[in-house]
């Protein structure tokens, strides 16, 4: 399981990096899907099968499909690749790389202080549902109101 965790984690990091440097937008999207799926595997290995499968259904299966749908409608040609290439000059990476390196240093520092023998507890569907409709029911209701507002707004905009 530990090997699987590191493997999925490595794929997630590499494919996310590829999303940023890829100039072909469809390929970038494919890498993003790969990244989300490997995060789902990480969730599964950490003992959260429900979160893993939701990650695959909601992010990789629904939201990314809509992204791809929009890309299909936009009719992006060769010129966007050249534009992307222009934006990806080496000097653009300097400042973000420094900041990310500082963050990584802090993260490594924190991880180094943690104990390494993590005990994996499996959190099944029942436990997640009991929490969602028990202590966190208010958050669920608020989220549903937010979604309803989005739905009404989308309906209104589409009517015009």
């Amino acid at each position, binding site marked *: 399981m530990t090997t699987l965790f590191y493997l999925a984690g490595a794929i997630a990091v590499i494919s996310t990096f590829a999303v940023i440097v890829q100039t072909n937008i*469809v*390929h970038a999207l*494919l890498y993003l899907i790969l990244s989300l799926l490997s995060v789902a595997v990480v969730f599964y290995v950490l003992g959260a*099968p429900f979160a893993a*499968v939701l990650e695959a*259904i909601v992010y990789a299966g629904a939201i990314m499909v*809509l992204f*791809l749908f929009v890309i299909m*409608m936009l009719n992006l040609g060769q010129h966007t690749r050249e534009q992307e290439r222009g934006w990806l000059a080496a000097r653009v990476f300097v400042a973000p790389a420094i900041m990310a390196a500082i963050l990584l240093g802090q993260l490594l520092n924190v991880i180094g202080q943690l104990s390494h023998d993590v005990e994996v507890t499996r959190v099944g569907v029942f436990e997640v549902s009991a929490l969602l409709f028990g202590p966190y029911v208010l958050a669920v209701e608020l989220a549903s109101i937010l979604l309803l507002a989005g739905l009404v707004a989308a309906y209104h905009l589409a009517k015009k």
Partner: protein
Amino acid sequence: MSLEVGSGLTIGLILLVVIVVAALLITVERRLLGFWQERLGPNRVGWFGSLQVVADMIKIFTKEDWVPPFADKVSFVVAPAIIMTVILLSFAVVPFAPNIGVVDSNIGVLFILAMASLGAYSVMLGGLSSDNKYALLGALRAAAQMVSYEVFMGISLLGVVALSGSFNLREIVAAQEEGMWFVIPQFIGFVIFLIAGVAESHRLPFDIPEAEQEICAGYHTEYSGMKFGMFFVGEYLGLVLVSSLITVLFFGGWLGPAFLPPIVWFALKSGVFIAFFILLRAAIPRPRYDQLMSYGWLFLLPLSLINLLVTGVIILL
């Protein structure tokens, strides 16, 4: 060597049988369509056309495997592989018999929904990477259709999940052994799942993404050889998958009187649904694209939500 859940022999046999059945369906479907449309169908090769599938396979393997120079090569090659992969992965959680299956998973139903939603990429990427206007139109239709019907497919299953109290397909079958088959309390859920299943595997009458009279062949216009063959066999694999899911979720899976072994009951029930899907193809004309969409969102969605609500109320009472 005995068959048990998750052993290498079982997994190999399931893969082999499922793919062979899907390939055989190409011939079976053409013969049955011929029967229902009062014509002969392919009956020249072998005994009553039984070797037609071999002839088809030889033809498809020896055709030129062509990638158009204007296509996006990577996505063009990946697209047909995606549909085969996700559907074969879905078979991993299907319980064929008490001792036959790949994995006994607590998230079986959700896993199948996840794989079904990933299957949409196959047709979308196939159409988009072809760089062909008919393929793009087909891919757009496919994307909208699959994303829409996924929603009702998921909701229609929740009644069964609520009644059995589990996402595990084996426990769903076990729950039907104690009570009745879920087709009786969940008849509306069954009908919605059946319609959504046809739409998800985009077969006639819902083959709007590839409607050959309107948009050439839709998303696989530019495909030839075995890449086209993978789309083709993928469609039949989807048909087998939907039929076996209906059997498991609504018709008691492998359950049946003891004079036949469980796997035979499973195969018989699934076979009936496969034949029913072929009959649908022979009998019903294709709806218009907007009719399909409004039928889904304005009729099936409210119906599936009401079905879930009523099921919940009855369980609580």
